[in-house]
């Protein structure tokens, strides 16, 4: 009778939690806190990455052309650029158009150009990249390639910006991984200790179960369930803490007018990621109680 045994095991797990109420609460709280620390880094990472990709989206690359190109040559260059899979969109800006743009953007400086007699601004193609080619390395490679096309004088884009942001995202990623690993180990230890207390307080019962022919699995399951529940509760609670902190932060930013509009860019974890985090908590909880079971039984329980 599988159901009856399962019910028994569930009841045992609940009883475990209830008898060690204080240690359970402490374990859930500390686990929640450690998970929340990892969560802060993850949030930072998720937001910066979102920001980075939205900035990368706006990045335009200017391909400047020689002044003496024939219409035929310009067409060829355009065909060549369009054929490139990395290129998302392409706009031609003629010399005249460039001048007009300059004059509308910088009306007070327009006399500088007039003094030169003829239009000094080159014609160009303005290019945005296809989504899959928006990384800074891909852009750099593309720029070098475009530079070698005959008729192209210069390829320009806001390289520093892209690279700085990409670098920052990478650092945060590494930091999130390191902090995540360390604090996960910490929460596994915390849960392992709680389970060890539970095992110790019920060692007589465990011995009895073994002597009357309970299988190892039967004896272990309530403690694995307890560990899983601790991990699950801890991670769920950490998400609640993080969400509260996040909303507070967003509220602060919104009321500080200097960052106008930034608050709209901030995002919390999407729902599927929340689920993944809770599952990770559950898994770490199981791992913690498994460790304790191994150490407690030395193979016997």
């Amino acid at each position, binding site marked *: 009778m599988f159901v009856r045994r399962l019910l028994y095991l569930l009841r045992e797990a609940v009883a475990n939690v209830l008898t060690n109420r204080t240690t359970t609460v402490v374990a859930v709280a500390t686990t929640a806190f450690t998970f929340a620390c990892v969560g802060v880094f993850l949030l930072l990472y998720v937001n910066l990455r979102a920001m980075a990709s939205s900035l990368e989206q706006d990045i335009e690359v200017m391909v400047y052309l020689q002044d003496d190109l024939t219409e035929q040559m310009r067409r060829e260059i355009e065909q060549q650029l369009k054929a490139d899979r990395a290129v998302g969109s392409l706009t031609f800006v003629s010399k005249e158009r460039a001048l007009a743009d300059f004059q509308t953007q910088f009306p007070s400086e327009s006399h500088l150009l007039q003094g030169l007699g003829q239009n000094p601004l080159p014609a160009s193609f303005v290019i945005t990249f296809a989504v899959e080619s928006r990384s800074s390395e891909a852009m750099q490679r593309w720029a070098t390639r475009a530079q070698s096309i005959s008729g192209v004088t210069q390829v320009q884009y806001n390289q520093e910006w892209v690279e700085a942001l990409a670098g920052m995202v990478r650092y945060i990623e590494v930091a999130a991984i390191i902090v995540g690993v360390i604090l996960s180990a910490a929460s596994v230890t915390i849960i392992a200790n709680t389970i060890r207390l539970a095992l110790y307080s019920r060692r007589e019962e465990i011995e009895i179960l073994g*002597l009357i*022919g309970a*299988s190892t699995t039967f004896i272990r399951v309530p403690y694995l369930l307890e560990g899983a529940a601790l991990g699950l509760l801890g991670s769920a609670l950490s998400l609640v803490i993080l969400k509260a902190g996040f909303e507070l932060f967003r509220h602060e930013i919104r009321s500080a007018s200097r960052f106008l509009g930034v608050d709209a860019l901030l995002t919390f974890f999407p729902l599927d990621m929340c689920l993944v985090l809770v599952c990770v908590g559950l898994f770490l909880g199981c791992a913690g109680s498994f460790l304790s079971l191994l150490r407690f039984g030395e193979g016997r329980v």
Partner: protein
Amino acid sequence: MVWPLTPVRPLPLSPSMIQLFHVSKYYDRRVALSDVTLEIEKGEFVLLMGPSGAGKSTLLKLLIGAERPEEGQILIQGRSLSKLRSSEIPLLRRKVGVVLQDFRLLPKKTVFDNVSLPLLVQGASTAEIRRKVAEALRAVGLDHKKDHVPSGLSTGEQQRICIARAIVNGPIMLLADEPTGNLDPELTSEIIDLFKSINARGTTIIVATHDPNVLAQVSRRVITLDQGRVVSQEQVCS
């Protein structure tokens, strides 16, 4: 693996319930059992006597696989315990009832729940559990106490509940370690009578004790241990 309830081979060749061949057990370097060879037949009622520290408890623990011998062979119904995988030990224990010295009841569970535990762990159905627990409690004369918790019972009653738990599964043998250790002579004879009636139904019984009151009441085979050695095996007749 299915632990056979009945001997595998026909009677003349059928293996004894328990056979020990030159069994030794050490804790660190201290000898607990030394070169023990003995045989116990199906249906026997054996007393294991000897002073404290003689190795009686150790012998019982070896029989249920709670300890493993350093030397020698132990066969239960012809099957070697040393060849059992650790996953098979629970299956052996489901066929052996134990009333150990420090083998207490679960204090927060009712008498019914305590006695039903051996059935529960092997997945018996609700109906089977009800029937067998009622039977076992009737055998020890405590079916009216099934909803009590152990703390509400006397010592003698608690010991009888332990015995009910040991026999609920219909074991091939029953091992009891100092079952009368903290009982007065009157309760002692009650418990011994209970063992006799269980034995009368065919269950092999081994009782380890240093209590002379028990010896006085059981006119069966007595195996005496001292410092880990079998010093005498005799058939006591009264």
